[in-house]
């Protein structure tokens, strides 16, 4: 199996991209870059500008704020979108727990990607809504 086919198959199983056709997924794989990290690597760096939008293909990562692990992420999860959408530095480190494989899209390309793929934008919006709901519950 080609490396590209492998990624397309993985993405087809993620809720974020569930509405995309195979040619659209192939286009996405060409548009996004792929990066791999090992244990302890920082993917996002708290307080530093110029970050990107990431989708975890394989592996897991910690959300670390001021050196304290707060939550974890796994395959199918995405991160960096708030920083990209608002143009502000990330408020947390994202740190690889073991080998972590991600697709990555630079912040400056996120808007055109989402506008060009409204189904993904809607799914992303649902994800953000769930985060707000969780936070609201936690605060109350």
């Amino acid at each position, binding site marked *: 199996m080609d*490396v590209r*086919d492998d990624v397309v198959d993985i993405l087809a199983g993620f809720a974020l991209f569930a509405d995309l056709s*195979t040619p*659209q997924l192939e286009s*996405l794989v060409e548009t996004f870059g792929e990066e791999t990290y090992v244990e302890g690597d920082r993917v996002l760096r708290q*307080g530093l500008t110029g970050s990107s939008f990431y989708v975890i293909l394989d592996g897991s990562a910690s959300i670390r704020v001021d050196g304290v692990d707060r939550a974890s992420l796994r395959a199918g999860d995405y991160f960096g979108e708030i920083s990209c959408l608002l143009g502000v*530095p990330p408020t947390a480190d994202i740190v690889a727990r073991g080998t972590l494989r991600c697709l990555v899209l630079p912040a400056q390309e996120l808007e055109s990607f989402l506008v060009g793929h409204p189904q993904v934008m809607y799914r992303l919006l649902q994800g953000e809504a769930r985060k707000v709901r969780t936070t609201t519950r936690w605060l109350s």
Partner: protein
Amino acid sequence: MTDRPFPPARYSLLVVGSGPGALQLTYSLRRLGVEHAVISQDSEPGGMFRRWPIFQRMLSWTKPYANHERGSTAYERYDWNSLLGDDDASRAIMPRIMDGTSYFPSRPEMQRGLEAFATGTGLQIRYECRWESTRKDGDDFVLTTSDGEYRAPCVVFAVGIAEPWKPSVLDIEGVQQYGQLRPAEQYADKRVFIVGKQNSGFEIASGLLPWARQIVLASPSSAKLSVDTRTLVGVRARYVQPYEDWALAGGVVILDASIERVEPSGAGYAVHTKSPADGRQLVFEVDDVIAATGFVSPLQDLPQVGVATFGQSRIPTQTPFWESATVRGIYFAGTIMQGSQGMRKHGIPSNSGAVQGYRYNARVLARHLAEERFGHKPEQRRLRSEEVVPLLLSEASRGPELWHQRSYLARVIGVDSDGGITDEGIQPLAHFVDGGGEHDGVAITLEANGKDDPYPAVYVRAGGRLVEHLMGSHPLLDFEGPEYQSELSGVLSGVLGRAPATRSAQ
């Protein structure tokens, strides 16, 4: 053959390759007094530039005339192709070799430049010694070669990423790959379908424009142009002519489509495509199909030894100092260094895939190996506090490492607990930012964001906390004026622990 250097034996360090990455590394190691062996399957230096680019002209420029004296450090910003020597004879070799007809050297000129560097500096390489397999034996790696077994606890592989790769959908007899093309004139009056819209695809299309009846360039996503991304990401201007032909409806077709299947049809092929945007299907009857779908690194059995790779090009995952992230003692040089991704700020990769980027990485790697593996501790220059700001701003304005490796290599200043300041030279920025370190320090680099002019970025580590400070750009890209001195002095006043360093200079 009896006087060939480095016969099979155990060495403390072994380098595999004789392309520009290996040449720069072995040169830099020798200058630092690090004994090592170098083997290569080729018969002469130059690596892939002995054959490619296939249309025989480089994609990277060398300006014979620039605002800095040829051979000076600052001139390196304008000369992307010369390797880095320490004496006049081995510096800025390329502009002396080029014939003046183009500021892109021809491939033969590039080859001659690399040969001149290797010969002129007296580099020792055991040629025609082919690496065949690898295994681990205790602390050593054992490389079986066509000449016998080599053992070393530390091996640097500089074997390029020049093995053409194609997806299974193109795995059909007669589909050509980069390096398998016929002479251009044999495509006269042919319909040519090129899969891939990166530089190799556009290079082929450019070369066939005078010959082919029709050219189709197709891949699922849109072509990016370097003049739009303001980075080396995207099709370089030299190869944009087919794009203009398409834009002006001159006959070239540039298509965003996935390749559904390719099948024989008459004397040629039928290529079935599908649009990711609207699902529209098209069938192209063509004479030739060319796969310009990328390259992989010929790592042979290194993955079986434990070397992890990533992406379609199967590039090794690496630390900031280009060591395999999964197998200690295995390092990489040359274009494979792009596997050490660094900060990738704004999503922009390093230039480690190109000579003008990895030649600097090689020098940093040589110093790292000398210090970490051989205990060579070069004396670091002590600085007075008032020297710091001018040094850093000079680096931001003229330092070729920073210009060619933006947000990737940085000039680093260390500050001891007793207030002593040392020049720690050029380091990977990711090492400074993520490596932590006990002492305070400052790193300066140039940063690009894909839309504006480059600007200096300063990272200050004090008391275990790292802070980023981005400075504004300048229309002439000169960052040494009083406003920059004043701003940087303010930024550094805390970490330098004394009065602003440039007060006397303002």
